[in-house]
């Protein structure tokens, strides 16, 4: 399982949690139970660089094994006002990693006095993921606009990164990449780029079991971020057409007998709660 406890190794304190988990894992199958599956985001995430900036897209399904755990989860995480990051892989890992890097980037930008750059976020993420040798299962698509223009990176769980004009990650990445390879052009207009990303995520949603529900989009330009959630509800839940409730009077009443219960108040006592 992906239950790991990041105790403070560096301060030489043993993480008793990890030993307990390892022990349980070994014995639990003998008792007939199975350890709980980590909630993953079998996902489709993608990003594209267009004329004025970056468009990031993601689906909204979180799965726990073969069951949908969250029908509308948010996979586009905030890193800084001009940088956003989509996350695929173990949901907790992507969430905590992006939050830690977001905090670090905020402290860094306060220390330098400048708007943070996408490449800084990329370097922080890749150094952290490499340090943990792939045990943090977070595959990320990082995009943003800084003083040097729009940038888009894909970051793999072991710490390798790619800087590309269009990237896809997650279990639906192949379906989304097929759409990108067909219709991507450099320097697209905003509407065309949004349509392209929407279609790529839709391809992932309809062709991959791990992705589903709605399509979220995030359009980042210099000085402005449009977080469109949901941009497109591709899978609306159906509405029931008929009703199976019986009308009043379906069952005929044969006899009716009413017996009143005459109760009188004997004693009344009030006990005040200690709300101090």
């Amino acid at each position, binding site marked *: 399982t992906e239950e*790991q*406890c*990041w*105790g*403070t*190794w*560096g*301060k*030489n*304190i*043993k*993480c*008793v949690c*990890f*030993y307990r988990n*390892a022990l349980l894992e070994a014995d639990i199958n003998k008792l007939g139970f199975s350890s709980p599956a980590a909630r993953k985001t079998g996902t489709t995430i993608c990003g594209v660089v267009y004329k004025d900036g970056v468009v990031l897209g993601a689906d909204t399904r979180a799965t726990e094994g073969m069951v949908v755990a969250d029908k509308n989860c948010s996979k586009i995480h905030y890193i800084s006002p001009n940088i956003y990051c989509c996350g695929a892989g173990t949901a907790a890992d992507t969430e905590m990693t992006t939050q*830690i890097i977001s*905090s*670090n980037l905020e*402290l*860094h930008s*306060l*220390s330098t006095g400048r708007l943070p750059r996408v490449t800084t976020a990329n370097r922080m993420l890749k150094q952290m993921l490499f*340090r*943990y*040798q792939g*045990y943090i299962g977070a595959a990320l698509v990082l995009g943003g606009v800084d003083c040097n223009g729009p940038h888009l990176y894909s970051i793999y769980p072991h710490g390798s990164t790619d800087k590309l004009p269009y990237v896809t990650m997650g279990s639906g990445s192949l379906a989304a990449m097929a759409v990108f390879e067909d219709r991507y052009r450099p320097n697209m207009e905003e509407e065309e780029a949004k349509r392209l990303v929407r279609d790529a995520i839709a391809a992932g949603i309809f062709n991959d079991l791990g992705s589903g529900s709605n399509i979220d989009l995030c359009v980042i330009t210099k000085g402005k971020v449009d977080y469109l959630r949901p941009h497109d509800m591709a899978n609306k839940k159906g509405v029931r057409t008929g009703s199976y409730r019986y009308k009043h009077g379906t069952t005929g009443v044969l006899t009716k007998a009413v017996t009143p219960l005459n109760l009188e108040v004997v004693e009344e006592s009030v006990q005040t709660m200690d709300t101090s």
Partner: protein
Amino acid sequence: MNTRGLRSQLKDSVPVTGLCPQAGSYGVQDSLRRGFSSVKNELLPSHPLELSEKNFQLNQDKMNFNTLRNIQGLHAPLKLQMEYRAARQIQRLPFLPSSNLALDTLRGSDDSIGFEDILNDPVQSELMGDPHIMTEYKLGVL
């Protein structure tokens, strides 16, 4: 990650002491302070990243000092290490958590957040050692 390769590090960084590695002050297993023990845990790392994480700060410092020595000469790391030693001595009484502010500032870790600040933060620990016993232990009276 190959744990066999890390076994060579065991001699340098993890002290493998005699027959009872969990020994406390009386030569018996000290479950209260050191947790449960098993021979397997003492010989091999229980997670492939255990050794690399235990030595992470050490290795980072070594690497940085080496680079500094190559660029600026021997005096630079020597001076810095002297300052580290001085800063490390600024501690509160043994049973209270120390902020280590001077040490953090020197290291440059005062403007970064890691897992050690979120998980198992000593400031938020629910347990505290007995003040008298701990000060006596530190002063060597016990």
